[in-house]
């Protein structure tokens, strides 16, 4: 049984309320930091912990904090990114819904470290009931003296509010999130300047994922060194994994980084194996944006070594044979899944969510969706596969924010690993008329047809 840091008290009845949370050691990190540590000492602990941003990029949190501009004398802000919208990811919602005070405690301790006196939690608008849970929890924290002026007599002031979005994946990108928090369309900004210098209302701002902030209390209460002892190599600590798809036990799990993919997938403590015991076909290990892995590259890497749940192991082999840990959105597909249909589905998502600023993304995502739709519906041409490859290649790296890359990677990986399935769609349009075509007849049973046909 792995160590639990974030979900240690998740099953305590009433942990949602201030009183129960406090009885279980809640807000101790605020006491410790404000009474016995300088802000820089808190930053140092987080640096020592090796914590990497849990939103998907995996950038070291302590280092991000150290970039905040303290010299200009402008007000500073900490903004929590609770816009969780990466398909396959639903872990932040779980934390906020069931242990809202953990995030609030983390916001206070982290704001103290950064010298921020006005901080926000930006939550996606669809999580409206969670928005209200956080609003209530913030009111409780104000009433108990953890927020407001001169907290614990330390001289540190902090106002914290929750702000809601209104349905836009792009607002998970930190500069788009800041635009949205300023009451504008979620168009990402050109960097530099980075938010650490010019963010919310042109003030120095740090944007961190919910999970990153929620782990700060544990790091402060224990130590960065203790945190770094958990996990493997540069993947320190625990990580929340959102598991979905064709598995027995979908849900949110806290794992110690370094757990083997095999154990996570098949042990009863975690996912319990495949739903209805059907064969495993593919895995998207870190949210829709990361490359999909075919069955033979899931439990083992290309060299035959065990694949582990860590930043490094999941990306072993680069994009040729690896993927990424990303946000921890772990999507499992069985043999009834149509990879072409799933790739079209992802492309439709990115087309819908493109903000429209950069032409390669605005136009390219639309073209990928159209071409994939055509192939999936039996109107594809042999050359469409090359066309798709060409479009994704022209989007990648040519946009001001990572949405372009996120849209390109799933298409590239699907063609790389499942090219024969695209060919099958093009060559046997009559066999894919029904959208559940591989439910009745999994691709494994018909793939020999592709090999026989020469074009």
């Amino acid at each position, binding site marked *: 049984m792995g160590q639990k840091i974030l979900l240690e008290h998740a099953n305590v009845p009433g942990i949602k309320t201030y009183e129960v949370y406090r009885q279980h050691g809640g807000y101790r990190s605020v006491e410790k930091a404000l009474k016995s540590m300088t802000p820089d000492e808190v930053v140092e602990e987080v640096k020592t912990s090796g914590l990497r941003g849990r939103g998907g990029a995996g950038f070291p949190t302590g280092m991000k904090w150290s970039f905040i501009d303290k010299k200009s004398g402008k007000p500073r802000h900490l903004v929590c990114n609770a816009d969780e*919208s990466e398909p396959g990811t639903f872990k932040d*919602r779980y934390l906020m819904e069931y242990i809202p005070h953990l995030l609030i405690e983390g916001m206070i301790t982290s704001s103290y470290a950064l010298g921020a006196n006005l901080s926000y939690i930006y939550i*996606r608008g*669809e999580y409206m*009931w969670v928005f209200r849970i956080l609003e209530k929890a913030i009111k409780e924290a104000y009433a108990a003296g953890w927020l407001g002026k001169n907290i614990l007599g330390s001289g540190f002031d902090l106002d914290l509010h929750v702000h809601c*979005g209104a349905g*836009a994946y792009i607002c998970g990108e930190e500069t788009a999130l800041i635009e949205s928090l300023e*009451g504008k369309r979620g168009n990402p900004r050109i960097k530099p300047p980075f938010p650490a210098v010019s963010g919310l209302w042109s003030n120095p701002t740090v944007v961190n994922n919910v999970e990153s902030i929620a782990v700060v209390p544990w790091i402060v209460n224990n130590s960065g060194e203790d945190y770094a002892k958990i996990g493997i190599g540069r993947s320190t600590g625990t990580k929340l994994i*959102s598991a979905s798809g064709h598995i027995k036990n979908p849900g949110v799990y806290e794992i110690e980084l370094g757990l083997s993919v095999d154990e996570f997938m098949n042990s009863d403590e975690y996912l319990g194996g495949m739903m209805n015991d059907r064969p495993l076909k593919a895995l998207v290990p870190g949210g829709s944006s990361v490359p999909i892995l075919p069955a033979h590259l899931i439990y083992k890497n290309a060299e035959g070594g065990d694949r582990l749940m860590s930043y490094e192991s999941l990306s072993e082999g680069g994009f040729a044979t690896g993927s990424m840990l990303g946000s921890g959105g772990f999507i499992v597909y069985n043999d009834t899944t149509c990879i072409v249909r799933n790739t079209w589905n992802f492309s439709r998502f990115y087309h819908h969510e493109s903000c429209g600023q950069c032409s390669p993304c605005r136009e390219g995502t639309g073209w990928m969706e159209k071409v994939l739709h055509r192939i999936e519906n039996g109107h594809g041409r042999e050359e469409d596969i090359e066309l798709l490859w060409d479009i994704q290649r022209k989007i990648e790296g040519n946009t001001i924010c990572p949405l372009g890359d996120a849209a390109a990677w799933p298409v590239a990986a699907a063609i790389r690993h499942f090219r024969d399935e695209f060919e099958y769609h093009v060559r046997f349009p009559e066999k894919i008329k029904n959208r559940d075509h591989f439910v009745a007849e999994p691709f494994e049973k018909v793939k020999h047809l592709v090999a026989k046909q020469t074009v």
Partner: protein
Amino acid sequence: MKISHVKQDINITPELQARIDELISHYPADKRKSALLPVLHEVQDAHDNWLSIELQDKVAEILNIKPIEVYEVVSFYTMYNQQPIGKYMFEFCRTSCCAIRGAENLMDYTCNKLGIKEGETTPDGMFTVVGVECLGACGYAPMLQLGDYYRENLTEEKMDALIEECKNGQVKLH
């Protein structure tokens, strides 16, 4: 989404105004515009879940910003409705994780039962069905959003029951 020229009764009640004032107080006095997204949600909720041009103009007036600053935001974010919609809007997530667990079939089932196509509203104005992108409920598929809440791990039987609850006025939206 096209804009609508249907006339909408605008009523900023004292309760709604108080809530708007509370939201505005969360931002520095010279940054009232920041309250735009949360304020639009509250105003829309209080006006049959849609925002006419006149209502958007009213929000601009309340926040002391130009109408175009409201229009460009309303047209960008999918949760703001620019035309009248059904009292009960079933928003089915149909992105990958939900799709492979039966979201498309369940949406078809619901549309057939209500006699409408995806994106349409029943003639009595009671129900709208729309397919939307990932709602962050991937492990609890298939699911839909109804008002401020999610309905998860759905089946055809649960859909039947939910439609009945709506018809009987037993569903809390906000």
